């Protein structure tokens, strides 16, 4: 008769029950402490505060907003700002990354190594430090409006922001954030793209050339589809990083969703609710990016017989 501690079925059931109980008890204790502490402090739980007046101003908004609007609207403004930074960052970083990635493969020694220096410098310093550098050492150190730096009257740089053609004006905060995020992510994306292109076997190039295809067509029809198969999964995680790193906007004074949520917490003391809002927002953004990229990925997958 096997001892009970060797009976596999019993052990499996016992392990399941014990683990369920452990998790349930730990959660119960933590939850209990939480509600007890909140009660003691007089802070209830509930999302009604979202309807009350925000009473604070937001520096940059995509939709009309003033301090009499609700916290809900303030958070919406923050969310739109986050999305704006993330989307622009993703697009620009991909472009930068593609250019630098291809430069890394250039036959020109100078171009190749300049790209290498760019990648190795930016990848090995913290993003926060780079953002501080761009904002404090560069953008707000620009001359004042009267003495602004001007490129052919189309692009103007001064310490309040950047003026681009077509009437676009970007504040210093947003400029520093976009530039920092783009250059940082661009370095990582460059390596991903380089790895992807290098992963395509040399034989493919040679076979395509033997078929008489021009370089442009070779890239488009033979190399890129195969390279993209390798590129897309790590590229997805870089895009997710861009979206998450946009939360560093708080360090340079740009009002993104994290910053607005943090201000909301400061003013209402509603820790749990604000935490849940932040979590739901970022998880939704991450999920959207993942799903989009996964659908893209599937269309590039090898269709095995």
């Amino acid at each position, binding site marked *: 008769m096997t001892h*009970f*501690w060797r*009976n596999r079925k*019993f052990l499996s059931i*016992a392990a399941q*029950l*014990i683990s369920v*109980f*452990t998790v349930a*008890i730990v959660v*119960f*204790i933590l939850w*209990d*402490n939480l509600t*007890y*502490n909140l009660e*003691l*402090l*007089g*802070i209830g739980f509930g999302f009604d505060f979202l309807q009350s007046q925000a*009473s*604070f*101003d*937001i*520096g940059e908004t995509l939709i009309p907003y*003033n*301090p*009499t609007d609700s916290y809900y609207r303030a958070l919406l403004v923050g969310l739109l700002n986050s999305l704006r930074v993330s989307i622009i960052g993703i697009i620009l970083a991909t472009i930068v990354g593609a250019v630098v990635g291809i430069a890394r493969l250039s036959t020109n020694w100078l171009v190749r190594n300049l790209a290498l220096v760019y990648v190795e410098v930016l990848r090995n310093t913290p993003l926060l430090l780079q953002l501080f550098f761009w904002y*404090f050492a560069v953008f*707000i*150190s620009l001359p*004042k409006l009267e003495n602004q730096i001007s490129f052919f009257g189309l692009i103007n740089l001064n*310490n*309040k922001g950047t003026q681009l053609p077509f009437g676009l004006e970007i504040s*210093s*905060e947003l400029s520093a954030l976009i530039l920092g995020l783009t250059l940082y992510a661009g370095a990582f994306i460059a390596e991903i793209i380089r790895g992807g292109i290098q992963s395509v076997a040399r034989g493919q190039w040679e076979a395509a050339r033997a078929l008489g295809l021009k370089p442009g067509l070779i890239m488009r029809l033979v190399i890129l589809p195969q390279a993209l198969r390798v590129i897309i999964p790590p590229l997805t995680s870089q895009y997710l990083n861009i979206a998450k790193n946009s939360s560093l906007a*708080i360090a340079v*004074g740009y*009002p993104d969703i994290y*910053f607005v949520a*943090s*201000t909301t*917490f*400061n*003013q*209402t*003391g509603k*820790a749990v609710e604000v935490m849940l809002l932040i979590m739901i927002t970022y998880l939704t953004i991450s999920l959207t990016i993942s799903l989009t990229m996964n659908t893209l990925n599937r269309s590039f997958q090898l269709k095995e017989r």
Partner: protein
Amino acid sequence: MLNRKWYLLFAILAVMLSMSACSRRLRGGNTTTISRLDTIKSRGKLVCGVSGQLPGFSFVKANGEYAGLDVDVCRAIAAAIFDDPKKVEYRNLNAKERFTAVQTGEVDILSRNTTWTFSRDTSTGMEFAPVIFYDGQGIMVRKNSNIKNLEDLKGKSVCTQTGTTNEQNLADQMRQRGISYKPIVFEDVNTVFTTYEQGRCEAITSDRSQLVSRRTTLSKPNEHTVLDLLISKEPLAPAVKNGDTKWFDVVKWTINSLINAEELGVNSQNVNQLTNSSNPEIKRLLGTEGDLGKAAGLSNDFVKRIIIHVGNYSEVYDRNLGKNSELKLERGKNKLWNQGGILFAPPFR
């Protein structure tokens, strides 16, 4: 019927369930009857939450010691409890974590130039002690910017710190006057001031005392001026956690004793002689008569200890913010009620 192993399993599960009774609710509310005052006494030191970055209120001197008005409040309490103003541990708190630190008991008292408001009193789980500094929110600009009042700020950028009443008050006032402006907001107070100095914003708003104090740390203080206007009332007061009357009373009456001592003319130079004074008010204050100290959980001569080690309100003010300091802030509303100000403490009786 069932094998022994199942009984063993159920026994283990039952033990685990009983361990969950370690949860506070089921243990009962014994912990709430122990006052923080007793905890402090047994710990041997006071844990004081301060800013650590505001000259005049709480900052770290070159030799590592803390000094300032908020710091002196904590030193006074330590003197009252332990007869030793050095028995304090200071924790630097930024604007975001200051309330959580009190709520969770990480610090015993928050002495951090915090404005007493309705919402903070009711919905952050804190109690505010008597006001130690009546302040107001102001604006600092460069002298050559020709900004003289709020209307001149139209279309300009104003730097401010988040997590403070400042950002809301400015929004209120500008909205009331219909002036549009651009707020540049940061979490870290140092960043706010350095960004203003760089010229990113034309104006900066904060408590007037903070503006005056911080102006001395700018690279060219004389280029800046604090405007005469007041955007709001900012009564600065220390705060303690809700629900601990004994501890709250000690903090309250420490502050009241500083004010009453000045009112009765007791200071650190004459407190020893005045112990033998014939004035019954002074006798009750210094504990030669009556049992007021004991009723609060302190020694009867706790005020004497405070005055000897820290001084009365005017000495504390002059040392940190007034004529003996670098800031030279006028006492203004912070004078006694019978000298033109609004400082008024209930009597020691």
